């Protein structure tokens, strides 16, 4: 409507732009944040002080510079999520430079709507819903104001926007539930997408696991259907590493290449449970050792080393049911080729450890006795379990075992596996999660990134692969209680692990429960959950769903339409006499004699009577009654009835029709 923007509107627009951009400050490069803030302030001042807008050359130069800046900052990779978002933010702010007509304003506002979407790539927590509504309302209010010539009070625009957003809510819910979902991704996710932010690393070097401890992000939630195994038995297997290169443990062949080829015997009582997995990196699905093959989800299989894997990367939250057996025999026979692989060590590393292994071998011929001896060594000698171990040099295992003796679980698991291999016992490192915190509200267990753990497996004749956790020998509390119990508070624990009061504990459990519900019901609502939910509603086929969506959507929309129209309906006339009078004028208007604006009832009656003398008597009668009723102080029911009767009896149209027939 308007081609220029009033100052008040512009300032409000800039404020809303700041609101939509603000949460990005966290992941934008600082110079970009500064540039955007500068542009916003400059635009406000330009309007306020009436400076001149920059010329075309300045605009192009600035846009190019900003583009090159982003390009350089992200090393030329603009495909990523961070780079894309940064570029979008910069370009939105640069839009302020050429910002005159209505088109520019509309483009900017649409960009602001779009910008909201990018926030959810970084965070989808519960509070973002509030942010979503606040922002949509604010942007809509500004959009409304821009349709009006001259500034509108925010009271009006926010009210109108609020009504519209409220009316759009039922449609949003309907579309969210019924709009057919397809399994993503459509074109692949950028490497740095939020879905792949945290999780167990692809290899294990000292420090890799302890870095995860800093994060209080939830890895998954577990609901047990029956007896719950004790914390010391809750080992959730993740990536397994069979190759040591002197520094890090890694996989010798791609993990996903093959399934479990060796024999797995399941013993004892089954434990069944459901896991609500958060999106994470890779294709890991976590399971208690060891899951039964028949209970696996359709798209999952057990990998070569007993890990549970999905056939496609797990980019969304998902829920799966499993049955595990806590007692099992994994690969009771090991062929020569595999045995060699699990004994291989790089030749030029850790000579002291090799000597120790040789010494141990001479003392213990039995493998199990040797394992026990090493665990006793960890337990009895002054080894310390710490989150902040000293850095290690080239012979990392030597330095750890003989000099520093301070380490986190990856130090113990790595050193133990090295020692076993050096002593001729096949061994490998297993990473995953251990433990999990009980939530009293939902009766489920939360496993966080800070529960990440590394342990070892050794192969013992006839028993197969046996789990050995050297950390348990050093710090039993870590395994039996939790990581915060095992670590010394003086170490400067991450905030989420610090000791807390009862109230705080209660609130945190409540919040965690809410988050769990949010994740389970809203965030993980994808193709699978939708199908299950719709089947329960009886909509088991796509055609029915689309039909239901159309019918319900149209009904809701029609209902909103009726509501809106009622808001704009003429106010009912309260005065009974006036109502009758208006009935009369409407009839006369249809007969071609409307009452003119500013024409009183008596003048009008006289004019009508002059044109149609045959109506004169009736018209004068009605006018007289009306004027008396209208200006009478006390109500007079009899007079009112007379007026109603008189108006009802007066039929100008039929009179005209009769006259037409006569002629």
């Amino acid at each position, binding site marked *: 409507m308007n081609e220029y923007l009033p100052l008040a509107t512009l300032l409000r627009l800039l404020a809303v732009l700041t609101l939509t951009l603000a949460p990005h400050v966290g992941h934008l490069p600082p110079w970009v944040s500064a540039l955007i803030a500068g542009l916003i302030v400059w635009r406000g001042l330009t309007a306020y002080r009436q400076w001149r807008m920059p010329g075309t050359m300045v605009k192009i130069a600035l846009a190019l510079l900003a583009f090159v800046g982003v390009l350089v900052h992200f090393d030329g990779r603009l495909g990523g999520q961070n780079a894309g978002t940064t570029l979008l933010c910069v370009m939105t702010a640069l839009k302020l430079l050429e910002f005159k007509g209505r088109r520019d304003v509309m483009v900017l506002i649409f960009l602001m709507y779009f910008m909201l*979407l990018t926030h959810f790539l970084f965070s989808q927590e519960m509070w973002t819903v509030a942010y979503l509504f606040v922002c*949509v309302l604010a942007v*809509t209010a500004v959009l409304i104001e821009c349709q009006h010539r001259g500034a509108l009070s925010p009271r009006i625009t926010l009210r109108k926007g609020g009504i519209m*957003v409220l009316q759009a809510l039922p449609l949003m819910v309907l579309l969210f539930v019924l709009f057919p979902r397809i399994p993503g991704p459509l074109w692949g996710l950028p490497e740095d997408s939020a879905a792949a932010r945290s999780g167990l690393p692809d290899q294990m070097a000292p420090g890799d696991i302890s870095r995860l401890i800093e994060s209080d992000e939830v890895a998954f939630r577990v609901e047990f259907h029956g007896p719950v195994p004790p914390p010391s038995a809750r080992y959730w297997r993740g990536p397994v590493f069979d190759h040591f290169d002197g520094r890090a443990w890694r996989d010798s062949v791609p993990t996903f290449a093959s399934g479990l080829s060796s024999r797995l015997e399941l013993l004892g009582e089954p434990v069944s449970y459901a896991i609500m997995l958060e999106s994470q990196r890779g294709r890991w699905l976590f399971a208690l050792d060891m899951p039964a093959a028949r209970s696996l989800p359709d798209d999952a299989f057990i990998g070569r080393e007993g890990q549970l894997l999905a056939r496609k990367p797990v980019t969304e939250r998902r829920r799966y049911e499993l049955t595990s057996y806590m007692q099992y025999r994994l690969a009771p026979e090991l062929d020569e080729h595999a045995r060699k692989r699990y004994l291989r060590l790089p030749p030029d590393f850790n000579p002291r450890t090799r000597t120790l292994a040789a010494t141990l071998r001479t003392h213990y011929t039995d493998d199990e006795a040797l394992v026990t001896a090493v665990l006793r060594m960890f337990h009895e000698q002054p080894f310390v379990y710490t989150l902040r171990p000293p850095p290690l040099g080239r012979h990392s295992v030597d330095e750890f075992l003989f000099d520093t003796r301070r380490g986190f679980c990856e130090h113990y698991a790595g050193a133990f596996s090295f020692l076993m291999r050096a002593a001729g016992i096949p061994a490998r490192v297993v990473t995953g999660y251990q433990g999990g915190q009980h939530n009293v509200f939902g009766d489920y267990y939360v496993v966080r990134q800070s529960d990440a753990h590394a342990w070892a497996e050794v192969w013992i004749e006839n028993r197969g692969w046996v789990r050995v956790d050297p950390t348990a020998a050093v710090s039993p509390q870590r395994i039996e209680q939790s990581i915060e119990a095992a670590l010394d508070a003086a170490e400067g624990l991450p905030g989420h692990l610090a000791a807390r009061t009862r109230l705080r504990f209660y609130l945190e459990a409540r919040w965690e429960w809410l988050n769990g519900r949010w994740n389970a019901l809203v965030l993980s609502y994808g193709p699978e959950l939708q199908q299950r939910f719709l089947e329960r509603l009886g909509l088991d086929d796509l055609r029915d769903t689309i039909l239901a969506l159309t019918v319900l959507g149209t009904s809701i929309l029609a209902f909103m*339409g009726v509501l*809106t129209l009622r808001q704009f309906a003429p106010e009912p006339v309260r005065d009974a006499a006036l109502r009758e009078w208006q009935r009369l004028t409407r009839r006369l*208007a249809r007969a071609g004699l*409307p009452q003119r604006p500013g024409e009183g009832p008596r003048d009008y009656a006289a004019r009508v009577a002059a044109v149609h003398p045959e109506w004169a008597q009736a018209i004068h009668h009605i006018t007289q009654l009306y004027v008396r009723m209208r200006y009478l102080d006390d109500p007079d029911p009899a007079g009112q009835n007379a007026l109603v009767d008189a108006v009802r009896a007066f039929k100008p149209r039929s009179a005209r029709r009769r006259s037409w027939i006569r002629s």
Partner: protein
Amino acid sequence: MRVWLITTVLLKPLHFVQNRIDAWVMARVRRQSGPITVARGRVYILPTRFGYAFALMLLAMLLGAMNYSNSMAFLLTFLLAGLGLVCMHHTHANLVNIQLRAGSCAPVFAGDIAHFEVRIDNPSAHPRYALALSWPKAEKQAITADVPARGSITLVLSLPTQHRGWLPAGVFSVSTEYPLGLFHAWTWAELDMRCLVFPRPAPGGIVPPATVGTNGLASGERSGQDEFAGLRSYRRGDAPRSIHWKSFPKLTHPVVKQFAETLEQELWLDWVALPWLDTEARLSQLTRWVLDAEAAQRSYGLRLPGRVIAPGRGDAHRIECLRALALYEDAQP
């Protein structure tokens, strides 16, 4: 002709369809004298270019949400989709139930701009924002205004005039894009409004012939309403009432009050005085003379074939003359 039609259909199908629909609707707009209440069925609505852009943006957002399987992105996309749909109702309702009435329209000279007043009443308890009034196909030059709750506002439509006579206002449109600018809702109405267009005044230069009026020389009887112009000596035949009695004792012979009217001849602006001009040019010249005579405060009469307006002066007289000139040989009353 047919080739041109086919080319249009092929090159601009939407444009073509739109024009056909417009023509169909326009032909069905009835001229109404009374207040027109804009009914629900009379409001047409289509997305604006911003509406299409919004839909495109929603599609992009939907694809993004699908790709990332991002529930919050789905929520946002669906909320905005709902907002767009709800906006359609609000834009539509912003126009429904308003009443349009014809206001006054002052006469103008051909070539000037006619101003038609249209009064918009809002009988509802909800104000209407950003209503636009314009001629069809000229929404760019629309004038916009708000109508308060239970209030009314008068807007002016301007139309350049070319010919004398009655100029009907014709069909105009009331439209709105409020609140979000995603939809354009409009209605077409034709009120019984017309503007009287006087002939364009000729540039001047031709002096009106000093035609002698039927009354000949003026008599003192008219002195009451005319301006005092001076004194002259008494001549035989002067009315006793016009003698300046006050000065009579001081002077040797009586003097008579002289009034302006009586000094001059009445001016007759006559159709037949301009035989060398065609009809329109004559009317223009007569218009010019009417204006000049009025400016010179002279009394003038107008003689047209079939119509004679007795001499007189003043606004009402001038308008009567101009009206006669405007409607000369015009079929309309």
